[in-house]
């Protein structure tokens, strides 16, 4: 199998694009595809100071690497969740982030927030002892990460938070929301979540803008990029994510992709086009008026304390 650009041996075939590429041309293609997504969705500008949320996994480290190589000013944020579960998961993940900086971008700055050290308890204890986390530790984890990401982004004056979400992540969420007709979520799911400035929420910091530059890449392509670039990443998945609904939907979509190449891409991108072009409309559910949390000051839709601060009650 030959590279469509230069005729050298291809390392990957992307059936949805009818494209096969060698390693250097694949890295070039991933870079161009990501840059195009940044421009198409008006995510951020070259002069913007960005914060990349990194987990030590393939998606976030690939994203950080690619954005730095493109010349963007991107600092990393690693949130240590205190997950051990017999495999030192959090410690190894942090080690991967530090190794990435040392080996590939020694000039890059990595911010580390240790949830256990800063707030007293890590995710496993929180999940076991709070009603919110007993059924789904991921719900507590997501809440904690969103709060900390927003705090660091606002305190540090970052223009936006970049996350490593890829097209498979987005398609899986879309499938889940469609099957449950979660119209509020369907109305909001997007490659860019706009900033809510302080004056809109009556708070000091507001809600930071969030962007997903890998939104047009399949998960397989993000993994291939990491392998080709020699990025060492944490291969074990989070022990709490095993058997998760998102992974189940990803596998279902990959079954569909196997028999119908491009199905995932069609599903997600056509959804965005239909909604943004007005051919499909979804009502936002509930009142999303924001007000400051009585304790931390971050925006919340609840009166009094925000969901994050209620976790520590």
């Amino acid at each position: 199998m030959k590279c469509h650009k230069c005729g050298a041996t291809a390392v990957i075939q992307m059936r949805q694009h009818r494209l096969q590429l060698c390693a250097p041309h694949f890295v070039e293609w991933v870079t161009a595809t990501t840059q195009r997504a940044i421009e198409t969705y008006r995510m951020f500008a070259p002069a913007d100071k960005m914060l990349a949320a990194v987990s030590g996994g393939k998606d976030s480290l690939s994203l950080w690497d690619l954005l730095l190589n493109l010349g963007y000013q991107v600092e990393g944020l690693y949130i240590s969740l205190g997950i051990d579960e017999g495999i030192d998961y959090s410690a190894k993940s942090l080690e991967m982030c530090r190794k990435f900086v040392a080996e590939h971008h020694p000039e890059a700055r990595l911010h580390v927030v240790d949830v256990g050290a800063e707030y007293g308890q890590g995710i496993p204890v929180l999940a076991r002892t709070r009603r919110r986390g007993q059924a789904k530790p991921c719900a507590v984890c997501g809440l904690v990460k969103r709060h900390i990401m927003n705090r660091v982004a606002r305190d540090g004056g970052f223009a936006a938070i970049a996350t490593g979400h890829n097209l498979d992540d987005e398609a899986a969420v879309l499938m889940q929301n469609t099957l449950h007709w979660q119209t509020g979520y369907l109305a909001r799911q997007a490659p860019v979540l706009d900033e809510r400035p302080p004056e809109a929420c009556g708070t000091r910091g507001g809600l930071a803008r969030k962007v997903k530059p890998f939104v047009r890449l399949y998960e397989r392509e993000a993994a291939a990029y990491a392998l080709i670039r020699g990025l060492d990443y944490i291969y074990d998945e989070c022990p709490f994510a095993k058997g998760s609904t998102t992974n189940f939907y990803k596998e279902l979509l990959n079954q569909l992709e196997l028999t119908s190449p491009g199905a995932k891409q069609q599903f997600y991108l056509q959804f965005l086009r239909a909604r943004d072009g007005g051919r499909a409309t979804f009502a936002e559910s509930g009142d999303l008026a924001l007000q400051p949390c009585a304790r931390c000051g971050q925006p919340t839709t609840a009166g009094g304390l925000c969901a994050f601060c209620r976790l520590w009650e």
Partner: protein
Amino acid sequence: MVKVIYRDKTWEVKPGSTVRHIIQKVGLNPESVLAVRDGQLINEATLTQDGDTIKLIAVVSGG
């Protein structure tokens, strides 16, 4: 024979078939894995040879 490794599992298969065929033969979806030989990513049309060790890398992660 060709040694195939995926997470903590190992298989031995006959040489001469493509990587894509081997991935499906061991019950995996070619859309969900990448194949590596001698530390290098290889395409799914690659013909395997006697003595090859193919490592299959899962690409699905997250929660």
